[in-house]
């Protein structure tokens, strides 16, 4: 640092930068085709084609598969289950500021029978673990789990407590982990976006029921 000539360094006061200049222009999608593209339907079709080529499948079947996936990714209904601190942030995520409803997921169903997503929001105590497992098992397929907060991931600050399960993935499979204590609602929303990506790219597809 000593070698830097101090006269030549211009000190910039960060507070005085006019950020309005750098504001990103929002591109509006005017024509119907690009609007439709933004819903993911067109991407879905492209994926279907890829998939059919890759796996040597019938295009129609792959298409139906992808349309179903598209339906699933845009309407993920979480089950109302908060365990501890993170549940409050789950509430604030569904409120005005962050509004999970934009992704079509504000329908918090009270019963696991009608929901697709389980947020493990908070500390899983050893007493609660079997009940949570039961709740997960009673959800119908396809279902996803997002483990939120360091407690649900690893036990977090309570890792050496005798009463806390160190990580919810010991009892149920987890799709997405969101670190933080508690994670900010933005992080939750990011996890939702990641989940959508997961469903879109891998998905569950259709198990053709007639073969059963």
């Amino acid at each position, binding site marked *: 640092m000593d070698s830097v000539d101090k006269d030549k360094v211009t000190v910039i006061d960060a507070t005085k930068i006019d950020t309005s200049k750098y504001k990103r222009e929002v591109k509006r999608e005017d024509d119907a085709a690009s609007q439709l593209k933004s819903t993911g339907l067109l991407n879905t079709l492209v994926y279907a084609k890829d998939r059919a080529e890759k796996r040597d499948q019938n295009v129609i079947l792959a298409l139906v598969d992808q349309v179903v996936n598209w339906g699933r990714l845009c309407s993920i209904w979480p089950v109302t289950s908060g365990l501890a601190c993170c549940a409050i*942030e789950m509430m604030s995520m569904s409120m005005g500021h962050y509004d999970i409803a934009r992704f079509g997921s504000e329908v918090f169903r009270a019963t696991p029978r009608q929901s697709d997503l389980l947020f493990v929001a908070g500390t899983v105590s050893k007493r609660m673990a079997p009940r949570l497992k039961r709740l997960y098992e009673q959800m119908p397929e396809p279902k996803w789990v997002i483990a939120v907060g360091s407690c649900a991931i690893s036990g977090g600050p309570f890792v050496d407590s005798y009463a806390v399960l160190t990580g919810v993935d010991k009892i149920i499979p987890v799709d997405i982990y969101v670190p933080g204590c508690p994670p900010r609602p933005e992080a939750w929303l990011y996890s939702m976006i990641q989940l959508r990506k997961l469903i879109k790219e891998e998905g569950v597809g259709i198990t053709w029921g007639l073969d059963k």
Partner: protein
Amino acid sequence: MARTEEYQLNVGPVHPSTHGVLRFVLTMDGETIKDTEMVLGQLHRGIEKIAESRSYLQFIPYTDRLDYISGMTNNYGFTKAVEDLAGITVPKKAEYLRVFVMELNRIVNHLVCIGSLLLDLGAATMIIYGFRERHKVLDLFESLCGARMTFNYIRPGGVRGDIPEGFIDNAKEFLRDMPKRIGDYAQLINDNEIVHMRMKGVGMLSPEDAINYGVTGPMLRGSGVSYDIRKDDPYSVYEELDFKACTRPECDTYARYIVRMDEMYESLYIAEQALKRRWHPTLQG
């Protein structure tokens, strides 16, 4: 003659109206609840045991997670105990700042409480409005300590740091806007006939019972007992501040709700005084 049977019904631990993980086993006859057994411990995290193996400073973050809506107040409770044990005197400036954040946290707490109450009654709108204001307070707290919910801000001997630039303006803006917002909520809820039907005369807790059970806070004051620890056994700098304990004599849910609404105004008033006094030249420690 038809025969009726008593049956057991689980409510919780995962139920929309048990906030947190609480479980009731109700014994019911038809629609009448005969008996309630409360099953606790689904959120037992062994914090006391953890505290044994932590230093005083290390334990402060855990207090945030006790009652996760009002982390500041929990911080203060623990810190106060440590300070009393160690005989630390806290500068006045820090005390005022503590009072300021604690009162804002009280507002947050009451907002979440009223919102959840209305949510359980079936009106989902109030909690969303409440969370809107909560978010503003949390923004203030975030500029103070960098966290939205788990603050770890109040430390033995003072607070984590001084206020950042621009904090006073934001805080003043909030204090200016908030009374109007509370007025909006009052308009939304107080004049609603169904709210009165659902809340008046429900959950009666007589003053004697309240004292015998050791109830505190707005619950006690909603039962007509004018006891506010900030006033009757003042800690911190509360005795230098001007406010009144809000009391209602009706002893029901509605009275407790009104107490909370009134306390939000009082908290705003206290916070305003604390903010002003903090800059008083003679008081700066």
